[in-house]
């Protein structure tokens, strides 16, 4: 009943507001008239009587306000009134509003973007049923995920912890639907793959464990929904169609549900093929080779009630059984469980740490923005102290005035938040569409979901309240009589105020941001300048897979030789080399293999002298790649199967395996299978897997002695890359029209390995720029404000003969002091924080004098920019006008 009445009253108040207000006005007026009548009767003049009546009555607005409050419906109505009042105020000080909204939009937008990425990559579970119990198996020794097929089978059949254990491997294949093969990305998966995930086909059927009857028994293809949509135009009749995969017939049996693309978040493959058909697909199977470990990744749901620790114990007992049973191939079979979505712990922790750090920086930006705007708000509130005092004198309660201030702060934060969210949704949408590595189907599916919106709203409201809270103390302490009497609330401004503290903190935060972005940018610059061990400029890469066009066995090196010959005939090409997999390409795969000194007889893994990166190259490769040969010779075409095994090694290999860099050529070392290899030459060290790696041993074999189906031609020429690419494509088509090539510059080819540090640099750069912007607005706001508060004092000083320099130091000295102190603190903190960066951005060291100088210079410039306008104003003061006005 009560509530109903409240709402009725609320509605009535809302719609008949003015009538009730008039009613109240009239009643109070009538009261005053009656009182005046009485006073007049006691002998006063009418006008005097009316005045007395008003004085006796007291603060009319205050009582009216109290009446309104008792009437209910007050909250909503007050809100409407506050909003209207605030909007009017904000419209009046447009500059302040625009600065505040933009600042908040940037800060909240940055937070929403970073959180969106964090959410998509780390917080959001995989889009499959029961993602929480899904784990991938990882080697405890090196955090790698790959298992050999026989090991996988043993793990699958012997474990008692998983409901089912599926395996998958990402690869490439040529898919030929109508005589025109194109590169496609295939996941070779175990038969139970779809059943382990517990998903149902969108169309047709999936293959199952029961379809596997030994090698090549299941030539089936299941398309992803996206590939079916883009390449088969949603044609439902594809089910049952026979297509050619690497020239072998496969049957499309089904389409996976939309948005399912396996357990790896950012990789979107095109279709799935049973791994038992690997030989048919790839021309070689390696499925029975327990010693070739880099094949499969395993994933599955833990059984209900099984903890990850129990499962690890279970897996490790199988691991020690494997070590005992297959000592030659299986070493260190310790397993841990990892979250599958970011390739387990290989990429997971780094990404996680970086994104968490970024989130921290972003929230610091928001904090700095709030501090910044908070001090602006406080300044505004101080400037309006007269207005506040008047309203207090007229009977407004302090709570009422504070509510007005909070309304204003919230309005601004809501506007800023809306703009920021809008921008970040657009940016996240763009990021989701973006293919950072054009060669591979890598997507960052970071489209915002409800959680991102909720966080943005929360941050918006929080920053609104933070802003509103800054001037609270000021309003609570306002003494209306003092202010109305003395004209302004100015009290001696020498003390350190909350505002100064906020500004110093903010400058420190900005200096941290500027320092870390400088460190990152500088690190990236240096890493791009540092020696790769090859020269990516003016080199094109042509990547093709001969198995896609059906080449098998000896046909492969023969064709590779013909391809080199064909490329050499292109005018302007200075040299052409071939390598199975170029260094710093394709997510840093280096084919690591154990090597032994020439004297080692027991070739068990424990006796290996080192693990070396392994490449298979053509004789001209080093010239084409721009790798300098320091000693000995490169290969010739005579280094073939009939000649003694030779290799070219790098300096690190010589140092680690042969003991010294001098006299390396001519010496011997051994491979895992016992082959003795003579060192023919030595080349400079380079980067192979990642630009952040320490020097790695590397060995290069002649391609005729160590044939590989991986084919990347390195074509060196000073010609325009686009024309060159066209010529290369044409030459290849002349040789074989059905070989799908991928042509890019070597610099483009390095995109995957540079991706992390590039992203780090870009995001830190953006945050740094935002920090700098905030510092400028903060210092500007503070110095402009402190100047305006002290105009009178400065006028008097000038009238008394103060010099311009003294005026300047009086007006802006404090701002400079704060700037210097804050920057120093920030620089120190930034140097500490940047230690973390070193792991992501190569050669990032904050102790770089360039970084220090750059940061100091940047902060000084920022300070100068921010105080420029106030300084000009201080210098152009005219004491006469000033004193007159005050």
């Amino acid at each position, binding site marked *: 009943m009560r509530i109903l009445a409240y709402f009725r009253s609320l509605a009535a108040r809302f719609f008949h507001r003015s009538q009730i207000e008039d009613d109240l006005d009239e009643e*109070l007026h009538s009261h005053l008239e*009656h009182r005046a009548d009485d006073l007049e009767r006691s002998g006063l003049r009418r006008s005097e009587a009316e005045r007395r009546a008003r004085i006796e009555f007291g603060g009319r607005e205050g009582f009216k306000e109290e009446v309104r409050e008792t009437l209910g419906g007050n909250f909503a109505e007050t809100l409407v009134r506050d909003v209207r009042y605030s909007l009017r105020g904000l419209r009046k000080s447009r500059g302040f509003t625009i600065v505040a909204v933009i600042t908040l939009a940037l800060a909240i937008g940055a937070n929403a973007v970073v959180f969106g990425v964090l959410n998509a990559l780390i917080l959001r579970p995989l889009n499959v049923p029961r993602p929480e119990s899904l784990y991938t198996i990882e080697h405890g020794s090196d955090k790698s995920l790959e298992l050999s097929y026989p090991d996988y089978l043993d793990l699958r059949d012997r474990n008692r912890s998983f409901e089912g254990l599926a395996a998958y491997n990402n690869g490439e294949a040529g898919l030929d639907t109508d005589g025109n093969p194109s590169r496609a990305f295939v996941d070779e998966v175990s038969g139970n793959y779809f059943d382990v995930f517990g998903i149902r086909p969108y169309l047709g059927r999936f293959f199952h464990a029961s379809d596997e009857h030994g090698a090549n028994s299941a030539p089936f293809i299941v398309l992803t929904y996206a590939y079916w949509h883009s390449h088969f135009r949603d044609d439902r009749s594809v089910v049952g169609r026979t297509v050619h995969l690497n020239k072998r017939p496969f049957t499309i049996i089904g389409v996976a549900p939309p948005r399912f693309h396996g357990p790896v978040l950012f990789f979107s493959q095109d279709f799935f093929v049973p791994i038992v058909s690997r030989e048919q697909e790839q021309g070689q199977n390696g499925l029975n080779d327990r010693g070739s470990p880099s094949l499969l990744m395993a994933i599955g749901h833990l059984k209900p009630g099984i903890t990850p620790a129990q499962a690890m114990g279970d897996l490790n007992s199988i691991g020690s059984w494997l070590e005992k049973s297959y000592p030659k191939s299986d070493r260190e079979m310790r397993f841990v469980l990892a979250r599958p979505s970011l390739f387990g712990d290989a990429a997971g922790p780094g990404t996680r740490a970086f994104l968490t750090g970024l989130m921290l920086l972003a929230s610091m930006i928001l904090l700095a923005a709030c501090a910044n705007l908070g001090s602006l708000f406080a300044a505004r509130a101080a400037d309006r102290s007269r207005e506040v005092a008047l309203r207090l004198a007229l009977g407004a309660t302090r709570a009422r005035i504070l509510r007005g201030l909070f309304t204003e702060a919230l309005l601004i934060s809501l506007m800023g938040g809306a703009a920021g969210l809008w921008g970040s949704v657009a940016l996240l949408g763009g990021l989701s569409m973006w293919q950072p590595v054009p060669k591979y189907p890598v997507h960052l599916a970071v489209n915002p979901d409800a959680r991102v919106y909720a966080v943005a709203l929360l941050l918006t409201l929080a920053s609104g309240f933070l802003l509103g809270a800054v001037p609270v103390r000021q309003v609570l302490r306002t003494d209306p009589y003092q202010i109305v009497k003395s004209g302004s609330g100015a009290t001696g401004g020498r003390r350190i105020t909350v505002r100064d503290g906020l500004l110093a903190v903010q400058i420190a935060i900005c200096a941290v941001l500027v320092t870390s972005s400088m460190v990152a940018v500088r690190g990236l610059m240096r890493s791009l300048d540092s020696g790769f061990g090859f020269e990516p400029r003016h080199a094109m890469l042509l990547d093709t897979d001969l198995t896609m066009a059906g080449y098998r066995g000896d046909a492969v090196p023969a064709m590779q030789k013909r391809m080199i010959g064909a490329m050499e005939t292109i005018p302007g090409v200075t040299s052409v080399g071939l390598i199975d997999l170029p260094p710093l390409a394709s997510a840093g795969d280096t084919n690591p293999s154990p090597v032994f000194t020439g004297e080692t007889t027991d070739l068990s893994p424990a006796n290996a002298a080192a693990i070396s990166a392994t490449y298979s190259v053509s004789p001209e490769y080093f010239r084409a790649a721009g790798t300098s040969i320091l000693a000995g010779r490169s290969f010739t075409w005579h280094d073939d199967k009939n000649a003694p095994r030779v290799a070219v090694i790098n300096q690190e290999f010589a140092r680690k395996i042969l003991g010294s860099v001098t006299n390396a050529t001519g010496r011997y070392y051994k491979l895992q299978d016992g082959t003795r290899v003579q060192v023919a030459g030595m080349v400079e060290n380079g980067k192979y897997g990642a630009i952040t790696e320490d020097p790695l041993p590397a060995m290069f074999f002649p391609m005729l002695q160590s044939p590989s189906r991986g084919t990347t031609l390195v074509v060196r020429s000073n010609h325009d890359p686009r024309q060159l690419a066209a010529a290369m494509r044409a030459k290849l088509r002349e040789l074989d029209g059905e070989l799908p090539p991928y042509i890019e510059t070597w610099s483009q080819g390095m995109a995957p390995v540079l991706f992390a540090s590039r992203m780090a640099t870009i995001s830190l750069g953006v945050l740094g720029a935002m920090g700098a912007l905030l510092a400028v607005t903060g210092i500007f706001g503070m110095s402009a404000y402190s100047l305006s508060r002290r105009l009178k004092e400065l006028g008097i000083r000038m009238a008394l003969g103060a010099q311009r320099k003294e005026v300047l130091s009086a007006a802006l000295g404090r701002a400079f002091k704060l700037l210097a102190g804050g920057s120093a603190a920030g620089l120190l903190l930034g140097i500490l924080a940047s230690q973390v960066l070193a792991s992501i951005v190569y050669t990032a060291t904050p102790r770089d004098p360039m970084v220090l100088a750059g940061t100091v210079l940047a902060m000084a410039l920022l300070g100068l920019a921010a105080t420029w306008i106030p300084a000009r104003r201080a210098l152009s003061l005219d004491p006469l006008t000033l004193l007159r006005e005050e």
Partner: protein
Amino acid sequence: MSGQAQLLPGTLDLLILKAVSLGPLHGYGVLLRIGQISGQALLIEQGALYPALFRLVRQGLLKATWGTSENNRRAKFYELTSLGRKRLREEAAGWNRLVTAMASALGAQAEEV
């Protein structure tokens, strides 16, 4: 000042109800009536009256109608509703109990304990 008593919190509503129970009154009239019936001992701040009046109307204890005053001015007249009459009886009884109890408590002599 010595002849006047401080108004206890919550007593204003009771006083208003009592004043209005003696006949419909406008706001200023309520003020005068309270002064009159308390022998000018209880003085009420003029403006403070109105929030109380509006509160009582909202609680349904008073009802208000516009009319013409004895000074021939437009004024809003308040009178008790039946609910208001009931409330006045209850509150007056409660108040009397309190006053008696307080008086006897404060009048107690040492030998009576």
